[in-house]
């Protein structure tokens, strides 16, 4: 028999009410490799990893680590076996320090009770089990752990102060604390769940460097992602899941991105979109010298001028946290600019309530579907009619005609091919998959034939099939004369859909181009502030990062 692989998950099956999330999935990871786990949203990646981390118990199947069979009932079992996991939503307590977050659960006793420390307490007493157990509960020693954490951080180039409070750290630093939590527990296998989703490209590069250093020391890493270019740049071998089943395992250097995409989706994927020319109409959005603060009162927009005409798609490119969310919210009317003016369809709406923006024909696809886009507990009908229920065609004998609302919701579900809806009044929005929910939101926002559509990351976290549909729908709407502001971190999406491209950096537009003339390297440079005269090369906007971190970490 050949040498056993480091990790083997064999025939894993997990069923949730109504869905088979994992159907006899196999996964084999070698020691010291970065193993990609690729799949669309809902393909079963997270379920498989939650099983490996002891959060879910599989219905069938076995897990072997280094040849030993594992029986994982809790994350604690997984950690004891040497498996650590960094979740997408960081599991850190902002109010506590790095060291406190890292040692939580380890029960580090105060220094005099540590077996390895100089202590006035005699060895016999210290090693007594009762004394140990009391000391572990009723004292807390952070000195030695802090030193060890600092050593680990320094060794892997993490640039962290172990005594700092989490609330003072930016997203990248918080992610490194998460990794430290695993390293502190001496794991051999580290699971990273879409780690770059929250990072700037610079931070992502940095993370990749650190990961290389870790694998050099023999650590194995499972890297969950749905981004093909990441697979190409960092992963050694990749396992692809589709609809809860294995769709293949490949050595990355031997396959193309197109091969991977096909395995992931199960058919050939066309990313090319044909775009017809339209005649631009009157301006539907005019922003003049707009300044705005973020949620913490720090200036996030520093003098933005933007004009969008009917039938025009303006793509805004930029590294996350450079004022995109604030700009989208100002344009959609849900954030007040501190100075500057906002005109929609020729009307001055500076300082107006969100309602007036909605009534003036502004539609909005927010970045976070579940948090701002829908009410997960309410029916598809409620969510589909959220923007239109005030329209007089829904007037009923006593106010609102719910039968009409229902009929309208049904037509939207049909037209936009929203799947998983049994009955629009019964099915809850929260029960729809990410892609279908996004289609529902888009249906609601587009069907009112808006003058202006503000679309913030419309295809983020959506499966490939839905991405195509959404992009087509946006372009169709452009033909109907809607002006569109498109925010995306996907440069291909920006260049494919836009008529004009603006790059935002630290709350200002720093570069403008068109898809025809676009030079990707130049855009990339501008996005990170590298295009500025004098080479003002700050790595990233620190306060902007912290804002994003706050929304991530303090759910």
């Amino acid at each position: 028999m050949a040498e056993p692989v480091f990790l083997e998950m064999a025939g894993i099956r997990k069923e949730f009410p109504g869905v088979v999330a994992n159907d006899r999935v196999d996964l084999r990871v070698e020691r010291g490799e970065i193993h990609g786990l690729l799949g669309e949203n809902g393909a079963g990646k997270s379920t498989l990893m939650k099983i490996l981390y002891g959060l879910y118990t599989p219905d069938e199947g076995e897990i072997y680590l280094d040849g030993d069979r594992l029986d994982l009932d809790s994350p604690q079992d997984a950690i004891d076996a040497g498996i650590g996991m960094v979740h997408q939503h960081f599991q850190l307590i902002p109010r506590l320090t790095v060291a406190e977050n890292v040692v939580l659960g380890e029960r580090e006793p105060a220094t005099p009770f540590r077996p390895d420390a100089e202590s006035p307490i005699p060895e016999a007493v210290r090693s007594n089990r009762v004394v140990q157990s009391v000391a572990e509960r009723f004292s807390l020693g952070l000195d030695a752990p802090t030193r060890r954490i600092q050593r680990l951080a320094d060794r892997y180039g993490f640039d962290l102060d172990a005594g700092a409070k989490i609330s003072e750290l930016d997203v990248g630093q918080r992610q490194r604390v998460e990794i430290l939590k695993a390293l502190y527990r001496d794991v051999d296998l580290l699971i990273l769940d879409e780690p770059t989703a929250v990072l700037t490209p610079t931070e992502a590069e940095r993370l990749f460097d650190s990961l290389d250093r870790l694998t050099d020391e023999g650590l194995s890493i499972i890297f969950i992602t749905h981004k093909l270019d990441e697979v190409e740049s960092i992963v050694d071998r990749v396992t692809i899941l589709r609809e809860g089943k294995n769709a293949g395992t490949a050595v990355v250097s031997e396959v193309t991105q197109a091969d991977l995409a096909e395995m992931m989706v199960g058919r050939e994927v066309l990313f090319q979109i044909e775009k017809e020319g339209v005649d631009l109409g009157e301006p539907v959005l005019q922003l003049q010298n707009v300044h705005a603060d973020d949620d913490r009162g720090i200036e996030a927009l520093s003098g933005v001028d933007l004009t969008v005409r009917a039938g025009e798609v303006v793509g805004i490119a930029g590294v996350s946290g450079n004022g995109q969310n604030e700009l989208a919210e100002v344009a959609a009317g849900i954030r007040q600019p501190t100075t500057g003016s906002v005109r929609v369809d020729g009307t001055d709406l500076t300082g107006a309530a969100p309602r007036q923006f909605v009534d003036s024909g502004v539609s909005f696809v927010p970045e976070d579907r579940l948090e701002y886009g829908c009410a997960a507990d309410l029916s598809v009908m409620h969510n589909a009619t959220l923007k239109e229920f005030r329209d007089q065609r829904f007037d009923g004998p006593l106010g609102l005609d719910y039968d009409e609302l229902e009929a309208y919701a049904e037509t939207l579900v049909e037209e936009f091919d929203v799947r998983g809806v049994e009955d629009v009044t019964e099915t809850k929005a929260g029960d729809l998959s990410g892609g279908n929910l996004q289609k529902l939101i888009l249906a609601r926002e587009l069907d009112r034939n808006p003058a202006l559509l503000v679309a913030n990351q419309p295809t983020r976290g959506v499966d490939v099939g839905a991405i195509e549909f959404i992009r087509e729908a946006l372009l169709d709407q452009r033909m109907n004369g809607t002006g569109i502001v498109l925010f995306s971190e996907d440069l291909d999406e920006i260049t494919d859909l836009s008529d004009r491209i603006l790059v935002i950096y630290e709350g200002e537009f720093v570069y403008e181009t068109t898809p025809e003339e676009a030079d990707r390297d130049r855009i990339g440079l501008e996005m990170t502030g590298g295009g500025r005269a004098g080479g003002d090369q700050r790595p990233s906007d620190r306060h902007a990062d912290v804002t994003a971190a706050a929304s991530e970490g303090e759910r």
Partner: protein
Amino acid sequence: MAGFLAGLLDATVAAATVFILAGLGELISERAGVLNLGVEGMMLGGALGGFAVTVVTNSPWIGLAAGVLVGMALALIHAFLCITLKANQVISGVMLTLLGTGLTTFYGSDWVGERIDGFAEVPVPLVGQYLVEIPVLGEALFRNTPTDYLALALVPLTWYLLNRTNLGLELISVGEDPEMADTMGVSVFKLRYLAVVFGGGFAGAAGAHLSLALVGNWSNGMTAGQGWIAVALVIFAQWRATRILLGAYLFGMLSALELRSQGLSVSLGPDAPLAGVLNPIIEFLLNTQIMSTYPYLATILVLSYAVIRSNSDRLAVPSALLEPYSRETD
């Protein structure tokens, strides 16, 4: 005036003990993420349980222990409903107060009119008998009931437990982010149960102090809303043990003043400017019932001020307060 002041301070210390004990208990429970609005009910349970057992055994110490146990038993109901059954904490807490009030009124009628010796005031050991002689402050600070000393000792103990032990770190993590605590191997259920039940014990002790040391008898509904003030106190103290002490003395002095305000006539002389306008206002503000509203109003002001002025990090309200926890529900 000095006599009045000495009496006021002495009464303040005694009244503050109720708030310290109940407030610390509520603090522990809330830091673990469980709001318990049943303090009033648990205090009544502790007061009646402590009193009845003292009547029977003639020992206030056994009575105190009984009061603590009754508080714990009642808190256990809240813990079961909110932690195991994931019930709404507000509803369950109101239920607990109803239950405590109902049960103690139901069973307490037999004990009304009984008398006990209860806890006597004793000077601080060793040096106390000399320090008591200090004018104004002596009696208030150095001759008190054992429960007063107990409450005072529990403040630094609670602070140490929450801030300087692994147990405290785990407790706080459970109140901030139970999901995270669970993945780190911290038993969310066990710690929340522990915190709620211990908190109940503190409330029970507060009730027992009331019937055994402060009043010396039992009457229906004798807590008279002090449990609610304790809930307010935790907010007023911004979830910090040391500030509980401060707030308890402030609220304690208010309730001590209420009892004495009839005998207290503060007014400007007839010649003072605006005396005609100000005297009725002063009289209104010093009215017993009006003074009873101050702790509540102060808490609303402090809470509003803290929320409006500072970020949530400084505010220190446990992030997962009111949130039930269960695995495998995402």
